[in-house]
């Protein structure tokens, strides 16, 4: 600290978010009297351009050389204020933030308590900033390749946007074909256009794009590195089909004698063979052999597929392949799983034959599905004369999932239309609230109402086959309280469709850990900011899009896929990226060469210099966690921007303020 420390402190009102609870003028006045503080101000919105100009003006006119802003969380506006400092010629690392919104005004009821806590945090920041050092950022080049994980409509959209811009995409999908859930549907709401007609051209385009390497039947095993420079290890599972030779003629599937219930693509109501493509328009066209069910793999004989393959492309000796790719950015679009309706035994799914899930019904109505688009009861021949559709199954229910699955109301309305169109059956919709908030959605609801569907507002209590009256005999009975007429009703129907909710993928947590991101309490991937940064994550270079981030319909998923692609392209366009300047540094004077730091570093960013017998930090690899600092026995490593001196100063600032309040006879808290 050779030059005189001149600190400017700015207390933000955030409208009434902070000022409603914290006496901001008093905190600013008090901050103005702290050591080294030259100006203490409060202002309505520090993040506004006028607020930022206030800082820039003080830097220029009052020679402020360090800045403290007390406002919201640094996760929201630290970059904003760092940039303001930069613009006015103050190194961004000479800025410090006190979080008096998320961690004071919003969490404290008493105004005096909140004001005191704000003062302590401001004092801590003022004390800390005096010890902060200017740092210069390192820039590393961005690898322009992109990894997209999950090739449903979201991933396909993202991959196409990026590939069309001339950058290379590795599109990884764990199923044998791309397409995701959308490929299972027949019609899409609210337009009722054919799902396959709008999806398959995109599938074809991405599958044949010169800038896309498609890796289906593959899963990401390991991710190393950081934004701009990830190394990703992918397991390409053995297909047992030579992709060079196979033409996708389908003879193997025809000849395979082993029928297997397809509980992935056909949702358990249809069959596939042991060698299969999930559906005729699958991309890629090559089938896979399902090792678990193939007679050859189970019993050592059969090989019917091999015998009949005109191109000799069946290869039972094929092994899993481990592929390593280098990418600069990653987009996760891993989608959702269907809520398992068996968890609600009173709804009878799994025990009552004519209770279906939404996905089963989707497959049933699909012209290419197991019933060729005919709606039948479980016996496969009887056309239902009455159908009940139950909303919010496993959603908006504290016993299962608290959240609204967002798509079920519209999906149920679509089902009502399709049932009517295909069977002429009487349809009952049992809903809690009707949620149709997007473009042309409510109009669709109006249309279905006009189609003569019965709408019953009430949560279904039970679905049973225990008849109480002769007309209930042989029927599936829906017991529901109709809250609009205030009566309990029993509705005997032939078929019940459970509009089961969307859930995070069963392995979302493991995937999150693999890519270094987090999951919400419900298990969805957490975005960087729910409104302003919906596709970025807290891990730079890793983006999320579509339903893996939360329940979403197709338009929203496609929009997010494109948004994630745009974010990635903007990074690629920069050519190089600023990486963490707050890295560790070894004091070679005092380092004893014990190598303790080397064993603790999660990034192998510390090397041992044999000639000097000292540890040395490789800056480009260091991510600035500081674990080495905590481990160093001779106190020879420090983490820039989080030095002992700085953290102790911050702690002391808070402690001494609390002690001061105590001495003045006020509550320290």
């Amino acid at each position, binding site marked *: 600290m050779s030059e005189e420390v001149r600190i400017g402190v700015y207390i933000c009102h955030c409208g009434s978010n902070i000022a409603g609870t914290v006496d901001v003028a008093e905190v600013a006045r008090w901050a103005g009297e702290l050591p080294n503080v030259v100006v203490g101000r409060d202002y309505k919105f520090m993040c506004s351009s006028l607020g930022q100009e206030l800082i820039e003006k003080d830097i220029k006119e009052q020679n402020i050389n360090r800045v403290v802003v007390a406002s919201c*969380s*640094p*996760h929201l506006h630290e970059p904003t204020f760092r940039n303001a400092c930069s613009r006015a010629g103050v190194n961004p690392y000479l800025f410090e933030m006190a*979080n008096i*919104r*998320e*961690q*004071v005004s*919003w*969490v*404290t*009821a008493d105004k005096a*308590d*909140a004001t*005191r*806590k704000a003062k*302590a*945090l401001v004092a*801590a920041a003022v004390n800390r900033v005096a010890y902060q050092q200017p740092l210069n950022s390192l820039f590393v080049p961005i690898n322009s390749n992109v990894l997209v994980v999950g090739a449903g409509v979201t991933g396909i959209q993202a991959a196409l946007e990026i590939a069309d811009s001339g950058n290379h995409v590795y599109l990884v999908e764990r199923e044998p074909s791309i397409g995701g859930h959308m490929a299972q549907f027949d019609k899409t709401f609210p337009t009722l256009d054919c799902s396959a007609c709008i999806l398959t051209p995109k599938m074809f385009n991405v599958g044949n794009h010169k800038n896309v390497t498609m890796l289906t039947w593959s899963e990401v095993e390991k991710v190393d590195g950081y934004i701009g420079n990830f190394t990703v290890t992918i397991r390409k599972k053995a297909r047992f089909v030579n992709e060079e030779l196979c033409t996708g003629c389908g003879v193997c599937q025809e000849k395979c004698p082993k029928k297997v219930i397809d509980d992935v693509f056909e949702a358990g109501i249809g069959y596939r063979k042991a060698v299969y493509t999930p559906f005729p328009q699958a991309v890629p066209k090559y089938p896979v052999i399902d090792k678990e069910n193939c007679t050859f793999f189970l019993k050592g004989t059969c090989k019917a597929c091999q015998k009949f393959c005109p191109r000799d492309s069946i290869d039972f000796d094929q092994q899993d392949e481990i592929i390593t790719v280098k990418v600069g950015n990653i987009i996760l679009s891993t989608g959702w799983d269907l809520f398992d309706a068996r968890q609600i035994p009173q709804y009878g799914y799994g025990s009552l034959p004519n209770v279906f899930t939404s996905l089963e019904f989707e497959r049933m109505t699909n012209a290419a599905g197991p019933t060729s688009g005919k709606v039948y009861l479980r016996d496969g021949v009887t056309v239902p004369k009455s159908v009940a559709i139950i909303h919010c199954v496993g959603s908006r229910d504290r016993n299962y999932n608290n959240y609204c699955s967002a798509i079920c109301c519209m999906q149920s309305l679509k089902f009502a239309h399709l049932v009517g169109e295909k069977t002429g059956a009487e349809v009952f919709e049992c809903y809690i609230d009707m949620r149709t908030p997007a473009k042309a959605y409510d109009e669709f609801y109006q249309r279905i109402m006009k189609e003569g569907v019965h709408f019953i507002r009430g949560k279904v209590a039970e679905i049973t086959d225990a008849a109480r009256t002769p007309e209930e005999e042989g029927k599936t009975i829906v017991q529901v309280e109709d809250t609009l007429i205030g009566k309990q009703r029993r509705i005997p129907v032939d078929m019940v469709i459970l509009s089961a909710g969307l859930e995070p993928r069963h392995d979302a947590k493991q995937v999150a*850990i693999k890519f*270094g991101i*987090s*999951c*919400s*309490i419900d298990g969805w991937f*957490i975005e960087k900011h729910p409104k302003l940064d919906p596709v970025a994550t*807290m*891990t730079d270079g890793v983006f999320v899009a579509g339903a893996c981030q939360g329940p979403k319909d197709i338009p929203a998923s496609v929009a997010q896929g494109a948004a994630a692609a745009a974010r990635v392209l903007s990074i690629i366009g920069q050519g190089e990226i600023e990486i963490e300047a*707050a890295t560790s540094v070894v004091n070679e004077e005092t380092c004893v060469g014990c190598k303790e730091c080397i064993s*603790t570093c*999660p*990034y192998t960013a510390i090397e041992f210099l044999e000639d000097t017998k000292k540890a040395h930090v490789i800056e480009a690899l260091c*991510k*600035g*966690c*500081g*674990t080495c*600092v*905590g*481990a*160093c026995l001779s*106190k020879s490593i420090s*983490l820039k921007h*989080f030095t*002992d001196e700085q*953290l*102790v100063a*911050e*702690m*002391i600032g*808070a*402690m*001494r303020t*609390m*002690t001061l309040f*105590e001495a003045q006879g006020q*509550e*320290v*808290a």
Partner: protein
Amino acid sequence: MYEPKIIGFLCNWCSYRGADTAGMARLKYATNVKVVRVPCSGRISPELVLRTFREGADGVMVLGCHIGDCHYGTGNHRTAKRMPILKKLLEYNGIDPERLYINWVSAAEGEKFATVIDEFTDKIRAMTPFEEVMK
């Protein structure tokens, strides 16, 4: 009864964001804990905790990511190993090890954050002020 002075060292990625999540949910909790943000709980050296007690803190909280959730992969593994040893060292030096609190709070666990702050504050409040103990 007195109002304890507590410093909470929070990792930037999980626990600090958990505190933000508590704020976004407008959960109310005790104001005694003043937060010092560190990149990773692994950065919290024993000396930093000891220095905080020397400054007169009645309690110190160390909050990190759940094991497996660490933004840096394994930084919190070090915390998990280091802090219990530090507790033993505190005890050896006549400082009640209960004054040092270690827990894992994820970015989503706003409610847990508010709860652990209140519980730890109450626990410390029931203890003799640290400065009196050290006299």
